[in-house]
Structures are given as structure tokens and as C-alpha cells.
């Protein structure tokens, strides 16, 4: 048993390292759940890639949805605005929006619902001046939950769009 535990811990470290390494090339670390104090960024100078790490608003890369809904809630307007400004300021920047759902309902229908959520954010970014050519939407439906319990607290965390910059 001790041996097993030790093997587990060693494997755990390896896996954790591998996970981080993989994450950096594919997507940035998950942000805090709620937007923190938002910087009034729009009137100042153009964003640079460094701001993706330092600006509190740009560091927020997830927005959440109500059950079976794909409307962007007003509490996320600031996040939409700062990411749209980044895309305006950086025409070479590219973004993938990953649409996700909770586990309720069928997997294929949830693929559609996840795409609808991704498209809702893409439309909002475009309405705020981003170019459609900068944004790609991928739906994972219910296949990539961040939380695996069967309750509303968990489902809420899974009904989300993740923003992933593929070019900064």
C-alpha cells in the first residue's frame, strides 16, 4: 500500500507537470470565476500582449450562462468590451471560443447548445468591433465539464464559454 501511494505521488507530480506544460501551449490557465474589479481600459492606449497577463479584465477568460440559455448576461459586458478592444487593437490576434453546457439532456443536443453560446459571445465581440475572421467557435457540449457533481452549483460552472487566444 505504501509503495502504491508513493508511486501515486510520483506519478501525480509527473502528471501535474505534464498538464501544465500541455496547458501552456493549448490554453491559458483558468481564470477566477467572477470578474474582479474591471479596469476602465477602453479610453487608454492600445492593448499589448503583456496586458493579457496583467490586465484584470483580459485575464478573465470565462463567462457563464443560465440553464438552457445562450444570452450574454449584463454582468459580463465589461469582459466582452475589453476582449473586443484587444481584438480591435491587435488585428493579428486570434481567439477560439469554446462553448460548453452542463450534463443535463442529450450529448448531441448539448453540442448545439454549446455552439449557440459560443456564437452569442462571438456576435457580441463582433458587435463591439472585433473582426469575424479573428474568432473561431468550437462547441464541446457537455464533454468538458470543470465540475462533475450533479447539482446546480456544479452545473452553473459548466455552462460557460472559455476564451482561448491562439495568437496574441
Amino acid at each position: 500500500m505504501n509503495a502504491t501511494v508513493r508511486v501515486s505521488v510520483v506519478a501525480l507530480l509527473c502528471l501535474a507537470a505534464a498538464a501544465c506544460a500541455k496547458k501552456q501551449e493549448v490554453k491559458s490557465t483558468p481564470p477566477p470565476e467572477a470578474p474582479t474589479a474591471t479596469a476602465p481600459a477602453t479610453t487608454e492606449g492600445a492593448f499589448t500582449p503583456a496586458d493579457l497577463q496583467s490586465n484584470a479584465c483580459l485575464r478573465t477568460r470565462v463567462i457563464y450562462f443560465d440553464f438552457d440559455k445562450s444570452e450574454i448576461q449584463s454582468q459580463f459586458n465589461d469582459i466582452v468590451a475589453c476582449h473586443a478592444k484587444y481584438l480591435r487593437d491587435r488585428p493579428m490576434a486570434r481567439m477560439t471560443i469554446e462553448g460548453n453546457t452542463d450534463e443535463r439532456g442529450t450529448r448531441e443536443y448539448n453540442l448545439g447548445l454549446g455552439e449557440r453560446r459560443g456564437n452569442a459571445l462571438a456576435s457580441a465581440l463582433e458587435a463591439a468591433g472585433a473582426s469575424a475572421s479573428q474568432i473561431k467557435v468550437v462547441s464541446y457540449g457537455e464533454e468538458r465539464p470543470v465540475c462533475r457533481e450533479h447539482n446546480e452549483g456544479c452545473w452553473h460552472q459548466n455552462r460557460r464559454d472559455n476564451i482561448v487566444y491562439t495568437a496574441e
Partner: protein
Amino acid sequence: MRIPKLLLALMLAVLAALFATQASAQGLTVQIVNGVPSAIPITVVPLGQQGSGPASPVDVAQIVSMDLDRCGKFRTLPTSEIVQSPTTGAQIKFATWQQLKQQYIVVGTTSYDGGVLKADYQLWDVAKQQMLLQNTVARQGSDLRRVAHEIADQIYQKIIGVRGAFDTRIAYVTMVGLGDNAQYALVVADSDGYNPQTVVRSHEALLSPTWSPDGTELAYVSFEGGNSAIYIQNIATGARRLVSSRPGINGAPRFSPDGKKLAVSLSFQGNPEIYVMDLATGALTRLTHNLAIDTEPSWTPDGQNIIFTSDRSGKPQLYEIPAGGGSPQRITFQGQYNADVAVDYDGKKLAMVQGNGNVYRIAVMDRSTGGQEIFVSPGNLDDSPSWAPNASMLLYAATEGPRGVLYSVSADGRVRQRLVLSDGDVREPAWGPYRNP
């Protein structure tokens, strides 16, 4: 609070990975959940040994009994109550079995020579003291259990009057590990979960496997390229081809009954719509035109119509449209949420996921009785219904605590059997067609 959770998840992933190397990869354990007292009583006597060769490596009588039990129509006598062991009709003492209130009795012998398992059996009516069936079944190699499934099929057909579906296969998806360590596999197994064979593995999600009508191929959705894509893969050779990786969703494949077409849901023209793809040419015919989610197409057995899920009325409901194009008609009106239809072999029974509030169950609608519905699963997160080719049973996926499990359930909902993966999730079951001899 977040960090310990993440650590815990990683620990679980590590443990799962450790166990995965020890346990047989995708083996399912089988448990009968409940039985039906009114089912037909039948005794399958342990088969005697023929000749002096080695004993049969599989317990034919036990496999036949398990098959008959799980379809809900039979109730076999437990081995502990089988007090006599006749192996021929002449040895049956009918008074004993009448006293045990048995309606039928199966006796016989097996031989196992040179890797070939041969079973000679007889089916007798206990009250009439009359032989109903006598046959010899033989198989070799990895097909030994099929001897028992074929016997069960023949008994089923003789007594029920419908072809049995025990000697069939099922496909399902397994998932071991979490997050970036997740390992998915598409697996094909016997209808009772034995003889699992991995068709494809992936680090990204696999879903919606579906059988070609001749049972040689599976179509499925894979995220291995970063987005959903539809593949068709030959089960025996492993050869596969990509049939759709357009921008947006490539989902919900279903072969037409003649195997020449594939109904799919694609969103490259803006939002998920139903298309029919000609598999010889790849040409697409678009069937639906609206802003709703249209997905999960399924053919009627005559190939004339397609039933699909659409939320054009607000919530998902089932609609039917001519396969060559036309006007869709809504066909479900009970329940807030109806999706992922499975059509049985004669088109009369539609199984679907029905959601009411937070409870999702498998409902069966009988179109021959004006759309009466029964629930065949208890919920709360049941999905992915799939009919046996004779519609005697259904497979579906359920969530129990943290894990996904499969159930087979008799068509009347009264007998359920759980199929559990030793280490991880099992989901997305698809029952294959009858097997060719």
C-alpha cells in the same frame, strides 16, 4: 478550496490510471437489478459432458440462463434448486419439474475437441412432456460464448415466436481519467458485455457510435482533431475514413437502413441542420432550414422518413420529415424535453430521452396505440436509448454518483440489468444488428 479539489481530481486520475493497467481494459460487470415473478418459468440444466475430451471452457447453461433472465420474459430456476441433472429427454422425470412449477426444461451435452465447442440440446414442454426443439450448435476460437447465445436465441424464438437477439453485439464509449488525462475508447462487446474489443482510443471525447446495417462498420464522432468530426470505421480491420470535418458541429451520424446514406447534423451553414450524405459520392442533401438546433436524426425502418430533435418550438421535441425533403411534423407532445430518438425494427416504438424538471428518463412511445408512453428507466440523468434488433430490450446510459453506467432493460421496463465498467465511465451504448452466421 479550489486547489484541494484539483489535487483530488489528479489523484483520482492517477489511481484510475494505475488500476487501468491491472484490470482487463474495458471489462463490464453484469448485475441483475430486479426480476418479474410473472415471467415464464424455465430450467436450463447444466449440460453434461460428451466424450472424454477437456471440459467446456464456458458454462453454456449458465450463459443461456442469464440471457433468458435479462430479457424479462423468462425466469430461470436457480442452480441450487436444480435437484436432478438429466442430459437427455429420456432422463427427465417430469413429475419433479412439474412440482417445481417449471413450464419448460432444457437438457443437453457439450464436447470440446480441438478448440471447437459443440452443444447438443433439447427443449421440452414439461406439462405436455413433449420435445419442442432439438439442435446442435458449434463455435470455435473466441466465439465459444456464442454457442450459448445462439441456443438462447433459438429457445426465445420457439417460445416467444420472435427472433432472439442475444447473439448480437453492442458498442459503447468508455472514459477513464479526468481532464487532460482522460482516455476515451470506443468498444464493441457481446450483447451481455463480454468479449470487449477496443475499436479506437483517443485523448479527446468520442460519442454517438452507430452501427452500419450489416454490422461491419461503426460511424462515430471524435474530437481528436480539436473539433467534432465524423468517422466510419471497419470493426474487423480497423480501417477508417473521415466523412465530415467541416467548420462547426459534425455530429449525430445514423446509417440509412440500406447502408448507403448517412444522416448527420452539421452546422457549417450557420447552425445545426439535418443533412443526408450519400456515402458513395459524399454529396449532401439538406433537409432542414431554420435557426433552431436540429440534430439526432434517426431513420424509420422503411428508409422513407427521418425523425430528429429540434428546439424550433422552444424546447427540444421530436419531428418527422421525409428523407428526400419536405415539411417536418412534430410528433411528441408529452414532457418538456424529448430528444435522441431510437426507432425499433418495425417503426412502432420510439424510445427517447424525456426530461421533466431535472429528471431525465427513457420514455417509450407506441405509435401503434396512438402515442401512449411508458417510462422504462428511473432517472435522473438517463440518456442514449438503443433498441435490440428485435425490440425485446433497450440499452441506455445512466449516471450513478460520479460514474456513468449502462443498463439493459426489458421493453416493458420491468427487468433491468446493470453493466458497470471496472474503472471509469461507460456511456453512449448502441445495440448492433443481428449477426450473420
